[in-house]
């Protein structure tokens, strides 16, 4: 019955279906009036900028409007290839991202297992409360804190001096060789606790009888973690991994802007801050947009690739 109706509907002439659409639409005007402002909003604030990406293929100057700027094809993209500052920023972005991926991805997993395994519920609550807190600090606040911690009379040097690890205080924020580690470790400090929330939520749903059965079979705590907890987290881990991989080229702009200074610039400049500097500080809109567009395209490719691979690994269960 339903099927014949839909077939009939499809066979109706276009004009009639069009008319029906408008009659329905008019009858639903009240609800449509609630949705349309949102659609108009998205059209203006999301779709017009997507159209605006076309300036990557134009030579846009301040006197031009978007539509009057002359087309130049791939010229901006060709310039990118020979821009050594751009490639420096790529190296920094990848270096920091892979450090964050290698260390920052594992720590929340370990931490969530550790929190899950604590039997004292008061300690559990305390650790969670404390570890979530840094997530709510802005990067500007944390940047200000880091600058004070690493100052020559600051906490970091104080601790190292009193432990006898160093002889005289140094400000490592001015040392380009340390910047990648500072960016990575400060990010972990801020987000590790927050990263445990979803893992803990997944673990809370594991059937406790699994653990009881394992105990009867003589499995110790570590074996229980390895054979029960981790396999149950697999899907959430791959979801997180996909999101992390697709964001590989999108390093944190707030963090970079506040921690970068004239001394560590060479190892601190990332693609996002480079786009910001070329576009808004130096006014080279077309070039900066071309860089941004290239990065978005590579990011989408990474996202799709990571999703495909994880689909294969997770028995064709797509996590996205």
């Amino acid at each position, binding site marked *: 019955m339903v099927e014949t109706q839909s077939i009939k509907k499809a066979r109706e002439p276009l004009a009639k279906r069009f008319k029906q659409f408008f009659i329905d639409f008019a009858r639903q005007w009240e609800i449509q009036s609630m949705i349309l402002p949102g659609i108009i909003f998205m059209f203006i604030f999301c779709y017009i900028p997507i159209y605006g990406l076309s300036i990557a293929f134009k030579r846009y100057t301040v006197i031009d409007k978007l539509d009057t700027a002359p087309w130049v094809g791939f010229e901006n993209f060709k310039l990118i290839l020979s821009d050594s500052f751009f490639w420096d920023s790529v190296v920094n972005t990848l270096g920091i991202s892979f450090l964050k991926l290698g260390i920052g991805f594992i720590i929340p997993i370990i931490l969530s297992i550790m929190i899950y395994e604590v039997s004292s519920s008061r300690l559990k609550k305390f650790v969670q409360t404390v570890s979530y807190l840094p997530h709510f600090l802005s990067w500007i*606040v944390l940047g200000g804190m880091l600058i004070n911690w690493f100052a020559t009379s600051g906490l970091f040097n104080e601790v190292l001096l009193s432990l006898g690890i160093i002889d005289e205080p140094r400000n490592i924020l001015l040392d380009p060789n340390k910047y990648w580690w500072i960016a990575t470790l400060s990010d972990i400090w801020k987000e590790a606790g927050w990263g445990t929330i979803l893992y803990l939520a997944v673990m809370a749903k594991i059937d406790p009888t699994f653990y009881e059965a394992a105990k009867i079979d003589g499995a110790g705590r570590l074996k229980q973690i390895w054979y029960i907890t981790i396999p149950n987290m697999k899907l959430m881990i791959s979801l997180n991994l996909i999101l992390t991989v697709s964001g590989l080229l999108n390093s944190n702009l707030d963090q970079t802007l506040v921690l970068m200074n004239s001394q560590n610039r060479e190892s601190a400049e990332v693609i996002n801050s480079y*786009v910001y500097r070329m576009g808004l500080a130096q006014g080279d809109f077309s070039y900066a947009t071309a860089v941004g567009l290239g990065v978005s395209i590579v990011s989408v490719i990474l996202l799709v690739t990571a999703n495909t691979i994880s689909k294969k690994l997770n028995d064709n269960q797509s996590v996205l």
Partner: protein
Amino acid sequence: MNSKTLKKDWNSRLFEYANMALLIIFTILIIVPLWNVIVSSFSSSRALSEGGFIFWSPEFSLENYRAVFRDDMIWQSFFISVAKTVIGVITHVLFCAMVAYGLSKNNIRGRKFYVGMGVVTMFFSGGMIPTYLLIKDLGMLNSFWVYIIPALLSFYDVIILMNFFRNVPLALEESAKIDGAGHWKIFLKIFIPLSMPAMATIALFNGVGQWNDFMTTKIYVTNEYLYPLQMKLYEIIVQAQTQSMQNVGGSVVIETATKGVQLATIVITTLPIVIMYPLLQRYFISGMMVGAVKE
């Protein structure tokens, strides 16, 4: 037999203690640096320049806070921060809820198109420069509304609210309809009050985002009277950094005076978040879970 269970018990206990010890070290690594910032902000400039303390300052003083509060621009920034957070959150939540209510009805004409259009915005965007050009063409550079209007809608939040609205019992809506209420009335009088938990979650996340946001100011605003606290703090940090680099070995007094101001501003900027934190904590875990559920 007995010795074997004892041994196992001992292993498990060792695991427990090692685990607890590591977690306590982890929390110390978070608490001590934060505590140190608070203590430092209440230190005299002399104590700050000499350093040498971790948990307790040798010379407590309110001079940093006095210096910060004497600055009229700090009060102005505080006002802007509060205004943009309060107005931004209310308009964002209501706008998202309105769209979500409409999209939560399955038989709406064009629904597939609307949702498709929204989902695209979750994965693609024009990026920094085209968005800047748009905001410029709309005349919103250096205007307070740049904090509010472009942040009105987030399709993630629409999806969360949409899923929540679907769980509101249909009978409530039908009985209201029989009493002659239209959709706007049903939305305002039934759905909004019933969806307070979901709206509060979104409001809190959005509020933290608004309070912490600094890129919007950095990109679109050059008028100092529109600077929120975050931007003010950023300026103080950058200023202090360039100053201290010019003064390597030079006048130490200037450096530490600004350092005290920096620390006090950091604490003031963070205070509202820390005060709200117990409230936040109640909501954000359930909020994360709702957010992770895809349509």
